[in-house]
C-alpha cells in the first residue's frame, strides 16, 4: 500500500500526520508499505524519531517499508542524520554540525545513551552551551529516556534524534517509543478504564503521581523537565496515543489528535542562547535535606 507523508514539523499537525500514517497502516501484514514524500513540503529532522516508531510497528508485522519521492535536499538531511541507514542508504557527513543522529536503543541501554550524548554534545552536533545548561539538558533527556525504558514496554526499543536550528538558536531533541502509551498505564493504575489520553498525560505530569509499582516513590521526572523548560524558555511536547500536550512560556494545553499515535514521544526544544547558570550555589547540607 502507499501512504502519503504530509508536512512534518514538531507541532500538532505534524504529529497528527504521523499518527494518521500509523492508523492507515495498522492492519497491514506481510505486505509492502510505501511512504510517499511527494506531498511533504518540510520535514523537521528530529521528527524521524516518532516516524520510526510507526515504521517499527509496520516492520513488526513483517511489512517491507520503503520511502519514496524524497526531494534531494530532504534525502541529504535524512542521510546526514543517519535515518536513511535504516532504509539501506549510506549516511553522509554532517558538515554543518547541526545533527544528533537518529539512533535506536534497547530499553536497558542507558549507558550507551550517555555515550551517544557525550559524543554529540561535544561540538559534533550540538552548539556550545554553558556547562550548567548542558548538564540540566542531559539530566532531562535521561529522565525521559528512563521513563520510556521503565514504562513503555516498547519491544522495538527507544528512538532518538536531535536537530539544531541555528537561525532560531533552538535545539530540538526527540525521544519516541512504540510502546503502550501513557494512557494504558495510568488507566491500569487508577482503575479508570475510560481515561482519555490527555487526562492521562496531565495525571502523569502531576507531581507525585507515578504508576511505578513496588511501593516506591516517583513521579518527578516529567515535573523536573517542565521546571527546566520553564526556566530555559523552551518548549516541551508530549504525544501519547490521542494526546498532544504542549508546554512553553506562553502556557500549556493538551489537544486531542485525530488519530492514534502508537506509542509515546517527548520532544524538548531548548533555547541554546540561554545564559542562566543553572548551578545553584546551594548551601543545603544533609541535615537540611532529611
Amino acid at each position: 500500500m502507499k501512504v502519503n507523508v504530509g508536512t512534518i514539523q514538531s507541532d500538532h499537525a505534524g504529529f497528527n500526520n504521523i499518527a494518521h500514517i500509523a492508523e492507515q497502516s495498522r492492519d497491514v501484514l506481510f505486505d509492502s508499505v510505501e511512504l510517499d514524500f511527494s506531498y511533504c513540503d518540510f520535514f523537521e529532522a528530529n521528527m524521524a524519531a516518532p516516524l520510526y516508531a510507526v515504521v517499527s510497528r509496520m516492520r513488526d508485522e513483517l511489512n517491507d517499508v520503503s520511502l519514496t519521492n524524497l526531494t534531494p535536499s530532504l534525502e541529504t538531511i535524512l542521510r546526514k542524520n543517519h535515518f536513511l541507514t535504516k532504509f539501506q542508504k549510506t549516511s553522509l557527513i554532517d558538515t554543518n554540525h547541526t545533527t544528533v543522529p537518529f539512533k535506536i536503543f534497547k530499553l536497558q541501554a542507558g549507558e550507551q545513551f550517555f555515550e551517544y550524548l557525550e559524543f554529540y554534545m561535544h561540538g559534533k552536533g550540538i552548539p556550545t552551551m554553558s556547562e550548567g545548561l548542558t548538564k540540566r539538558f542531559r539530566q532531562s533527556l535521561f529522565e525521559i529516556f528512563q521513563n520510556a525504558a521503565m514504562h513503555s514496554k516498547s519491544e522495538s526499543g527507544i528512538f532518538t534524534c536531535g536537530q539544531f536550528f541555528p537561525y532560531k538558536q533552538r535545539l530540538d531533541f526527540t525521544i519516541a517509543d512504540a510502546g503502550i502509551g501513557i494512557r494504558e498505564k495510568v488507566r491500569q493504575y487508577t482503575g479508570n478504564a475510560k481515561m482519555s489520553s490527555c487526562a492521562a498525560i496531565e495525571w502523569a505530569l502531576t507531581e507525585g503521581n507515578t504508576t511505578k509499582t513496588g511501593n516506591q516513590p516517583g513521579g518527578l521526572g516529567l515535573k523536573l523537565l517542565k521546571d527546566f523548560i520553564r526556566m530555559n524558555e523552551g518548549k516541551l511536547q508530549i504525544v501519547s496515543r490521542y494526546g498532544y500536550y504542549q508546554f512553553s512560556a506562553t502556557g500549556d494545553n493538551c489537544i486531542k489528535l485525530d488519530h492514534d499515535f502508537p506509542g509515546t514521544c517527548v520532544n524538548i526544544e531548548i533555547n541554546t542562547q540561554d545564559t542562566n547558570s543553572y548551578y545553584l550555589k546551594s548551601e543545603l547540607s544533609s541535615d537540611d535535606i532529611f
Partner: protein
Amino acid sequence: MNNRITIRVVDLIGSQLCISAEDGQKVFDKVLPLLKDGKPVTISFDHVSMVISLFLNVAIGQLYGSFSEDEVRALIKVEGLSGDDMELLKRVVDNAKKYYSNPKGYDAAWQEEGNEDEQ
C-alpha cells in the same frame, strides 16, 4: 556513637552514572540493613558524573518507607553532590515523605476523566 560507614556509590554500582532504578536498588539494599542496626551511614557520590531523580527515588527516597524522618535524619548523610544535585535530592526526599504519608492517595477526581471517542 557507632563508627560511620561510607558507601561509595561509584564502587558499588560500578559506574559514574546514577541513572537506573536497578542501581538505586543496589544502594538501598546496602543501606537498609545498616540503618536497621542503627548504624550511621554516609552515601558518597564522589566521582559520580550524572544523577537523576529515578535513581535517588529508589536509593534514598525509598528509605522513608521503612524509617521515620527522625531516624533517617539521625543516621544518613550524603556527600559529593553538587549544589544543584543537592536541590534535586531535597525534592526527591520531600516527594518521598509525601508519598509514604499517603501512598495511594491519588485524587478521586481522576476517576471522572473520560473520553468515549478513544478506543
